[in-house]
Structures are given as C-alpha cells and as structure tokens.
C-alpha cells in the first residue's frame, strides 16, 4: 500500500497533539482500548471533552508537563492509503528533532494559533521546511473557535506567510491554508459550518490529494555500495554482488557505469532482488548488482551511470543545522557520514549564521545548538556528491562527534 509521510510542527500549546488525536479519532483509527484510556484519563483530569493529545504524547515526562518532547511516529490509514505522521516538538530547543522528523517526510503541517498569529516559531518551522525543500506545506490555522471563526484573522496569517514565502530560497513549495479547530473538529476531517467563507478542502481531503513522491525525488541515479556479497556456496562460486539502495532514478541491465572513486568503468550484468533477476529496478529498491568486469569495489564506493558523474572533490560548502550542545567551531574535526560512506572532515571556516525569521545572515565564529549556518569543510578522501538542490539523497551528510559518537549536525551541500 502507498505510504505518505507527514511532519507536523507547531509551538507549545498550538494544539498539535490534539490535531493529530482528532485526525485519528475522526478517521476511526483509535481502537476501543485506546479510546477508553483517553476517556479515563480525560475524566480523571476533570475535562468535559476528550483530550486527544493523550493519544500521541508517549513519554511520562511529556504527560506530566503536557508537552511533546521527542519525535513520535503515528500511523493511520484511509481507504486511499497509509499515513505516517512524524510529530515533532515545537519549542526552540528541540529544533533538531524537527529536522529529524521533516527529513523523512513528503509533506508538512505547520500549526498556527489563530489568536497569536505568525510568531517567531512559525517562521522557524517554515524556514526549516523550506531548507529541506519539502514540496507540500499545509498551514493549519488552529483554534479558530476561540476567535469566533473570524475570516480576517485567518487572512492576516495567510498574507504574512505568503510574504515569508517570497523571501524563501526554495520557491517550488505548494502552500495551502486551512482554518481549523482541532478540539471541536472543524475542517479537520469534517467540513465546518462555522467557516462559510472558506470554500477549500478539509485537512484530510487535502492530504488525500497530495501526490505521493519519494522523499528524495527524481534525480540522476546514484548507487552507494552498502556491502559486497560473496556467498561461500558452490553454485555461486564466483558470485560478486554489490548490495545497496538505488537513489534518484532507475538502473537497468546493460547500463554503462562508472565506479567511484576508482573511476573504472563496466556494465551492469544482473540486478537481483532476493532470488529473482530483473531487467530494470526503480529508485528506492534495495537490490544486489553484478558487473560484467571484475573490478575492485568496496563499501562506501558508488556506482553511477558513466554520463552522469557527480562532483568528486575534497572540499565542499554546506548549510549545516547544528544539533549538539558543544558548538561547531572552525578547525575542529568530525567524522562525516555521507550516506554509507564515512570520512574524516576538518571545518575550514564558519561563514555565517542564518536567521530563521528570514532576516538574513550574520558573520559568526561558531554554530550553537539549533543554529543553521554556512560552513566550508575539507575531507580526507574525495567525496562523490551532488548539491542538495540537485539530488537530495546524495546532497546531505551528518557530522559525528568523534568523542561522544553522537550525531552532532546535518549538512545540506550547496
């Protein structure tokens, strides 16, 4: 079945968990035992309505504080397809989780509290979704019931975000605005009678209509090698297969290919998926490829079509979202993981930090936790990369702290 992955973002108290709970409830995705648990808990808190946020806020600390502090994944399905929601926290200090959730999503819902309008957080959410080049953005203007379903409040928010979109670097986004009340259910799944001035789709109607594309989108084919398969079996005595996932485009038997970094050339001989051979495999397939020639290939190498060679360089420029408490400084060293390829990197220069409210860049010495900035890096071995703009899959990397081993930042190659 088709799966659509959606990231949700909002500020504290925007009612994000309530919105998701409402979607689950109205699509009848909450099972009886979960519903009972919600009823029980809502009663014990003395609410006279159902507190749907309890359906998603999973960790004890979250339930105690009534906020969401980590990415939770929520599943529901309609007749049409399955959905995975990456519910990401809204507060500024948890931006790294927002990037995490958004990086695997095809669409994003940004929640705005109709009473508060566009705030700094909203701009930040929009900025991150734009940086990650998420195609479909839904701005859900929530708590419309608390502003008497006032059309002018909705229009103000709409025009403010449209202004931000003009200042954004990626112009290809489809932005849709929907007035909702997650608590009461207006325009979430059911069309509201309280918004006669709104003729558009409900939130779910809109989600159902979004075209399902893979997160990485169509680009030139890239095949990074995860491992070399050498079975110690008589019937596969000379078998040498290269296991990996195809990104960007199809690969077919007979394609003329170049292996990086050695730059040797060959042709694709066979494409295996389990015990079957195929002529063509689409992007996203985890296959095993054999080549016509005996070449030296190992993990971290990349097979590409010979007329579609990526950049091969030891220097790169990237926009980095920093996710570690220890700031990123010039001349520091990190492990750089580019897909399945690991190298060592030295930070050449930190050029600037970019304001997430679209007000521009300022020069800086370091990137602090949750900062987004422009950085120049040098790696110890040539990397075979594309810009994130041209090839999402082959244009991103993570930086790993060599002392703590934690994932300290994510880079988008420029």
């Amino acid at each position, binding site marked *: 079945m088709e799966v659509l992955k959606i990231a949700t973002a909002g500020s504290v108290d925007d009612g994000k968990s309530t919105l998701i709970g409402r979607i689950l409830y109205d699509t009848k995705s909450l099972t009886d035992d979960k519903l009972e648990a919600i009823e029980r808990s809502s009663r014990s808190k003395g609410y006279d309505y159902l507190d749907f946020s309890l359906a998603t806020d999973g960790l004890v600390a979250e339930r105690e504080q009534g906020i969401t502090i980590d990415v939770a994944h929520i599943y529901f399905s309609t007749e049409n397809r399955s959905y995975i929601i990456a519910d990401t926290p809204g507060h500024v200090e948890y931006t790294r989780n927002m990037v995490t959730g958004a990086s695997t999503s095809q669409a994003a819902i940004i929640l705005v509290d109709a009473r508060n309008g566009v705030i700094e957080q909203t701009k930040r959410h929009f900025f991150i979704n734009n940086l990650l080049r998420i195609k479909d953005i839904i701005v859900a203007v929530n708590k419309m019931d608390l502003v008497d379903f006032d059309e002018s409040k909705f229009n103000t928010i709409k025009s403010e975000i449209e202004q931000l979109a003009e200042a954004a670097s990626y112009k290809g986004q489809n932005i849709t605005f929907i007035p909702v009340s997650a608590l009461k259910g207006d325009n979430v799944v059911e069309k509201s009678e309280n918004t006669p001035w709104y003729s558009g789709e409900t939130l779910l109607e809109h989600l159902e209509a979004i075209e399902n594309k893979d997160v990485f989108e169509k680009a030139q084919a890239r095949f990074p090698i995860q491992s070399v*398969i050498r079975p110690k079996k008589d019937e596969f005595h000379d078998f040498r297969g290269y296991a990996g996932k195809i990104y960007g485009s199809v690969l077919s038997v007979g394609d003329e290919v170049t292996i990086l970094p050695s730059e040797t050339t060959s042709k694709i001989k066979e494409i295996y998926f389990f*015990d079957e051979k195929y002529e063509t495999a689409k992007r996203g397939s985890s296959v095993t490829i054999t080549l016509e020639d005996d070449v030296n290939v190992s993990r971290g190498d990349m097979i590409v079509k010979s007329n579609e060679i990526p950049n091969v360089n030891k220097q790169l420029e990237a926009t980095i979202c920093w996710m570690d408490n220890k700031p990123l400084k010039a001349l520091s060293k990190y492990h750089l993981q580019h897909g399945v390829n690991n190298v060592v990197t030295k930070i050449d220069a930190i050029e600037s930090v970019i304001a997430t409210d679209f007000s521009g860049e300022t020069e800086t010495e370091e990137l602090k936790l949750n900062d987004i900035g422009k950085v120049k890096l040098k790696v110890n071995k040539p990397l075979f990369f594309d810009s994130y703009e041209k090839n999402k899959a082959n244009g991103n990397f993570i930086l790993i702290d060599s002392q703590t081993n934690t994932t300290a930042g994510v880079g988008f190659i420029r």
Partner: protein
Amino acid sequence: MKTILENNELENEAIYIIREVAAQFEKPVLLFSGGKDSITLVRLAQKAFYPATIPFPLLHVDTGHNFPETIEFRDRLVEELGLELIVRNVQDNIDSGKVKEESGKYASRNMLQTETLLDAIEEFGFDACIGGARRDEEKARAKERIFSVRDDFGQWDEKNQRPEVFDTLNGKIDLGQNVRVFPISNWTELDVWSYIEKEGIEIPSIYFAHKRPVFERDGLIWSAHDEYVYREEDEIVLEKIVRFRTVGDMSCTAAVESNAFTIRDVVQEIRNSRISERGARIDDKRSEAAMEKRKQQGYF
C-alpha cells in the same frame, strides 16, 4: 528474467537497515521470539544477503513458558534455513537465584527476560541486537529510533536520543554500549500480516483460530495451562475457538475469539479490528507508563 522490479517501500527500507547492521557492527544478533514480527525479520534478512546466508545468529530468550507450537516452529525454521540459533533460558537465572519469579494472580516471566537478554549480550559481546518492535505498537515505542543506543546496563535514555536524518544510520558506539535495531519500525500490524500473506511466509499455528481450553479474567481470555498460568478456583475453564494476535510468554499473552482459519481471514480480521494489538498484552496493562519503564531498564 523479470522486467521491472516493483517497489515495496517498507520492505526496501528494512533490507537497507539490516544491511547497515551487518556492515557497521562486528557482532550483530537477531532477537527471535518465534512471533510473526521476528519471523518477518528472518525473511527480510534472507533477502538482504541472498545468495549469501544470513551473516549473524538468532538469539531466543526462552521464558520456559512459551507455547510449544512456537518452539517447534522455531527449530524447524532454523534447520531449514541453516541458521545458527542461540537459546538462553530465564529458568537458569531463576534457579541460580539471580532473579526472583513473581507469584500470584498476575505472575509473568515477561519482565525476567530482560536480565537474561542482558546476560547474553555480555556473554557473546553482541554490539547490535535486531528486533521486531514496531512504532505503532505502543506509545513509548513510537519514539524509538531505528538505531537505538543502549548503555552498559542496557538502559534507554529516551530524552537524549541521537537525531536520525534521512536514511543515514550512525552506528558508532563506545566499548560496552550496544545498539538495538528496529528494521520494521515503520510497519503497522496490518503491514506485517499483508506481507506474510503476499510472501507466503509460514507462521506458527497459534496465530490461526483453534480450539483451546481457556478462562476469562478482567475481560481478557487467558490460556488455561495450570503449570504456567496461575488460575483462581472460581475461574472456570472453557473450550473456545480462539487465536493469538501477538505471541509472547503464555502468562502474559491473551487470546482473542476468532474464526480466522487462514492468513486471508487474519488480514481481514485485523483490518476490521477495533482493539489494538497490545490490548491483548497483559503486561502493558499494569500502568500507563508500563512499556516506557521496562524499556529504560533494558527491555525490548
């Protein structure tokens, strides 16, 4: 040769993850319970490395209170695929006095598995344990990463998880740490059943409707097995047509009344179900935060 390979996104993702485990770790192991999720993992691992065999062993933490059908199934599968199976018994830790068995009405050995698992990790030096947990099962599991780092005590620090961006998996760990890996994180119960049907994967018979002596307690159907499951005198044994939706220890897995005799029936039943899978897990009902607490202590 077939023309075009059609995509199953969830399957491709799982194969990719399993291959990363084999490449990034020195001593991975697949935790095998004999349940449908771990059986699915075995099939995915076969696909990941074909024509080579699966390059890591299976580990079964045996509570001693398993359904005999599951154990028979396990042994047959391992034999057919030529896999290495390691079994470690909860009973050994009970006998040596390392852990104390619960007694009374809700006694279960489910919690005791944690200690045996951690012992086995230490005994063999496993640095990655592949498990069949899914994010849709339970609220705390919804927050798990694909690669979830555990400290020397097997503990999960849920507030300090590594960010996981795109499909890049960071498997770097310190000595003594290990990683729990969840390749089918993004699958739902229905996805697993649909896959089992499509692939024609064999599963233990207790997943299908069968006649079984049972008794009712707290609105759940318990297996009547006096040796493993405590029963009050006024809890009367009845014969019912039931099946199991989830297979754990006999003392903590409730049955459901069902007429699903084939895999197709099961898929249909799950599609129409109004009760969640873990609704039949007695161990989850202990408190709202039951799973999170167990996970912090090293439970799967």
